[in-house]
């Protein structure tokens, strides 16, 4: 069995008196997509920076692809790709020039720039200056840049934040393609729909600690409630909502009673979302 792609052991980081990451430990298997969910200030970006060699942990260690990141950051960085939350492209250069520059930094001599741009939906726009790109286009180029060195691990920080649905879907498609190629993906996001859809496992981080780490299905099973939500017409003619928790002994009787006694307008079954679970576990939302 190959070593995990990512091993975090007791990672800790402080910004002055603020304990941003509090002794977190986890592993990510090769070829896995791990979602890292948490609100702003939870410690997601700091964790990513420690894993990618941008910050040195105060204690603990990170091992990527069997390499200690703190000791050999450049060896690790030559095999990973990073898509930052905020675009940090050279806006005075074209998309092609941005990619070629980073290809040279990674010593990649056989990069097919046009094919890469096509993959992220930027074909025909590679020669334009990045300063003229829309937000979605810049984000696509950021993804393309992260793929220049065919990374073994891809770190994506909020890759679809603020994007239109088409751009977001294009990026999700690329993420899945990379995972199928064998890359490991470490995805930080607020978007529980994205995490639910893409990730093999998700980790909830809050105030620097991991509060849960499991597959979305298991988290919902363990922490979520399945329910039926009904919209009813009340005595005053106004619509009201009633929820009936499923999987209880009295559930069938409650549903029968509902249908018999009330004027039901709509009836839907629902399962808990990851955000619902996060709120239940931490008392706060993902936003």
């Amino acid at each position, binding site marked *: 069995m190959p070593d995990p792609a990512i091993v975090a052991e007791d990672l800790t980081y402080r910004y002055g008196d603020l304990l941003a990451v509090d002794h977190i430990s986890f592993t990510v298997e090769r070829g896995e997509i791990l979602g890292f969910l948490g609100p702003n200030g939870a410690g997601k970006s700091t964790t990513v920076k420690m894993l*990618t*060699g*941008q910050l040195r942990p105060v204690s603990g260690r990170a091992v990527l692809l069997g390499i200690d990141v703190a000791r050999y950051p*450049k060896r690790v*960085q*030559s095999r*990973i790709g*990073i898509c*930052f939350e*905020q*675009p*940090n*492209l*050279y*806006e*005075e*250069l074209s998309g092609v*020039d941005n990619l070629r*520059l*980073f290809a*040279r*930094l*990674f*010593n990649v001599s056989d990069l097919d720039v046009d094919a890469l741009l096509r993959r992220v939906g930027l074909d025909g726009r590679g020669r334009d200056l990045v300063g003229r790109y829309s937000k979605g286009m810049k984000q696509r180029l950021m993804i393309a*840049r992260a793929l220049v*060195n065919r990374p073994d691990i891809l770190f994506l920080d909020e890759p679809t934040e603020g994007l239109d649905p088409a751009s977001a879907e294009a990026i999700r498609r690329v993420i899945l393609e990379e995972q199928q190629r064998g890359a490991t993906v470490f995805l930080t996001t607020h978007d529980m729909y994205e995490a639910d859809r893409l990730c093999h496992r998700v980790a909830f981080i809050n105030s620097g600690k991991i509060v849960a780490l499991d597959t979305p299905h298991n988290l919902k099973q363990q922490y979520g409630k399945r329910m039926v939500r009904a919209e009813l017409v009340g005595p005053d003619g106004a619509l009201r909502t009633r929820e009936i928790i499923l999987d209880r002994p009295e559930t069938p009787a409650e549903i029968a009673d509902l249908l018999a006694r009330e004027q039901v307008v709509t009836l839907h079954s629902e399962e808990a979302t990851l955000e619902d679970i996060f709120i239940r576990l931490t008392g706060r939302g993902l936003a």
Partner: protein
Amino acid sequence: MNVAAIWALIQKDVRLYFANRLFALVTALGLVAYVTIYFLLPATVDETVRIGMVIPSLPPALADALADDAVQISQFASADELRAAVAAGTVTIGFAFPPDLYDQIRQGARPAVELFLAPEVTPDLVSVYEAAGRELSFSLIGQELPVTISEVVLGPDLAGAQIAPRQRMLPLFAVLVLMVECLGLASLIVAEVEQGTIRALLVTPLTMRGLFLAKSLFGSLFAFVQAVVLMAVTGGLAQAAFLNLTALLIGSVLMTGVAFLIAALGRDLMSVMGWGMLALLIMALPTFTVLIPGLAADWVRLIPTHYLVDTIYRSLNFGAGWSEVGGNLAPLAGSALLLLAMGMVILQRRFA
């Protein structure tokens, strides 16, 4: 170290530099302006002293004694005419002796001699002209001082070969060219920090050392090339070419260090300009001591560009060679390396 990566970064910086229209224009127009101003400035110095006199009669012996290529004597009929000539700039100074000069002297009186001075005569020369007027008066009455004065010029005799204004300006132009590139490099770095592209570079195999090497090479070579163009076009490489090229190269490295420091302090273009103006003022001070020799002071030697300016100025105007000014290169190089190291250490913290 990945040489291809370093070269790629230098190429990228060249493109980014010229993508900034302000610096592209200032670089190109600046060079043109400095060269133009250089050739518009006088190539020679007019050493002629124009003296006007109102005198009853000029003894032939005295006329012979005053005859000199550098002195032009003009006689005027009256003090009013002489006053008007001085005011108009026709003559620089005028001595107006009274018409009954010799009669007053024979009668034991003290004739009054008027000394008219043009406004541009500096205060330190007024007493010199007063003394000349007294000696002239003694000569006129036939009572010369019983002394013989012999002139000894300590150093190069610049009589007839005064340093032209354009030659005095050349070190200032060289420093300005280097400083403009320094500001350009600082702005480039600050923009990269603010845009986050430095962070993107540093999560690749590129090391901090490689990044600074690329920036240092770009900054130094770019500034050096422009300084060489300036000096070549203005004839500044006609003498002691290798010495001056070496000094300019070290000066370029010095300015790169200054650029790193400015970038470490600046947060945006405005703050870079602010810090840059302060640096420019300090670095340009030694050039003013060349323009106005009376400004020279020992503390100017604390400014690293003094050694660059002194090398260029003395090699071009006094024929100084390696033995005379080669020693300047050591403090210049030491300052350059110190500023470069300081700049890297402080700037590195902004990159992290």
